């Protein structure tokens, strides 16, 4: 897949809750095809403490509107600067980067499990899966009700299940505590997950117990995003692999100490 460096304009910057926002970005040229699970390296101008680009998953793509959407958690200076971006401002993106989730065959049933801002790549994944005739169930883990993000959008592509830590919405607990994982309920052909490593490990183990393939999306710290610096490695059965080019999507069976 050919990579590009383009200036994008902010079309919308929408707050989801105090910690997260969604940026909709539009380039002057036509978007190149992007696959679910891919990410972009965003240059953050106007933040003195943000020297490197910031890797962010593609949250959604709208080819008709010629926009990409990012769902971002305010973490440090870089993401807070992005949070302050206004309509019309310019951001420079290197994209699309990385490999992508495997899209199964029509009629399959897929479970998409996201925790925190790890839900980001799952919206576009759900969209593409649904278009491919796959039955989508999204399981979203949020700290509290306030942190359930864009529920209506996820519901467009299939069923949405929710867990919150206090149980005020959905099932109480973490994603792995949801009843969907019980033997009698589990009816999926494939599991996709993105979120904190411990969550993904637990999900990967559950998927293994159910004997279905699983894909995890990693977030190793990156410098280049294009396979040049070798900073973003993860240990696999075949030695160190780059998360930015060999990933971010991996089969947990290939990752050391994951299952």
């Amino acid at each position, binding site marked *: 897949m*050919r*990579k*590009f*460096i383009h200036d994008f304009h902010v079309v919308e910057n929408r707050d989801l809750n105090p910690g997260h926002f969604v940026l909709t970005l539009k380039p002057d040229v036509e978007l190149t095809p992007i696959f679910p699970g891919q990410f972009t390296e965003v*240059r953050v101008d106007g933040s003195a*403490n943000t*020297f*490197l*680009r910031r890797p962010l998953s593609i949250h959604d793509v709208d080819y008709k509107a010629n926009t990409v959407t990012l769902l971002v958690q305010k973490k440090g200076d870089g993401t807070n600067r992005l949070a302050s971006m206004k309509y019309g401002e310019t951001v420079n993106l*290197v994209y699309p980067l990385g490999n992508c989730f495997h899209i199964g065959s029509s009629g399959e049933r897929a479970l998409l499990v996201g925790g925190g801002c790890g839900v980001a790549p799952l919206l576009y994944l759900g969209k593409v899966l649904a278009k491919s005739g796959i039955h989508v169930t999204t399981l979203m883990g949020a700290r509290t009700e306030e942190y359930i993000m864009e529920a209506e959008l996820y519901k467009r592509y299939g069923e949405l299940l929710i867990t919150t830590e206090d149980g005020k919405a959905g099932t109480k607990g973490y994603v792995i505590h949801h009843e969907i994982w019980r033997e009698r309920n589990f009816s999926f052909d494939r599991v996709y997950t993105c979120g904190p490593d411990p969550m993904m490990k637990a999900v990967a183990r559950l998927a293994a117990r159910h004997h279905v393939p699983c894909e995890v999306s990693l977030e*190793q*710290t*990156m*410098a*280049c*995003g*294009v*396979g*040049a*610096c*070798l*900073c*973003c*490695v*993860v*240990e696999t059965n075949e*030695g*160190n692999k780059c998360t930015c*080019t060999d990933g971010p999507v991996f089969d947990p069976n290939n990752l050391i100490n994951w299952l």
Partner: protein
Amino acid sequence: MKPSLEVKIHNLVLKNPVMTASGTFGYGPEFEDFFDPSTLGGIFVKGTTGKLRQGNPYPRMAETPMGMLNAVGLQNKGVDGFINDIYPRIKHYHTNLIVNVSGSTIEEYIEVAEKINSLDHVPAIELNISCPNVKEGGMAFGTSCPSAAAVTRAVREVYQKTLIVKLSPNVTSIAEIAQAVEGEGADAVSVINTLLGMAINAETRRPVLSTVTGGLSGPAIKPVALRMVWQTANAIKIPVIGLGGIMTASDAIEFILAGATAVQVGTANFIDPAVCPKIIEGIEDYLIRHGIDNIKSLISGLNIN
């Protein structure tokens, strides 16, 4: 009339003085989507060792004010892996391919240099005696005159093409090390490799890097690099290749004025994967704007009076 950007480093003719620094540009293909690597003056490929190396454990990177620390630790496929898997994919580039030769022992440097010597499309090697990220050797060779001289001498005996030695900035007098390697037949020096630094996460009270310390690169080190290029160029007769924090054409010009015959661009490739053609263009614009028809007249052109 277009100004001439051509420079010479010993036997190498560079169509322009802009090359990419080892470890920051992969082998070239990683950047083909952004520009044609053949437009570069040269490409210094990733540090290559005798055997395949997995490098250091993750995490290997820490962002710092206007710079970054890395502790990659020479992950590479080894010299045979380079020759068999990588070289065939890049040897057609119309530019100078230079292999950064790394090792833990003099024997390893010799082994790699000998094998690379036989590659038709690699006209030069860069001896990395300054990598701060591997325990055994690397930087240790570059921090004393006798050891820097010893490894240069040993490699010079087996390597017939252009021999560049990459110096460590973590020394009291880089000019003395430069003189030592010049005395053993080095054809050029690269100045500088990374400064040894460290990053701590105050919240977790742990080092950010798995190796505790790592190599600092990027604009933060530019003033130190520029000073070292100037000191080195004033101390030796062989050409100096300048690097450390170059982000723009103006940065490159500064290194050339300080005494560099050519430059390498490293960390900047991460911020803008298409930065090198911009630097080349910017140098050309500078020459036109200043009415200079040949870049060579800028080398050591600093006016200190």
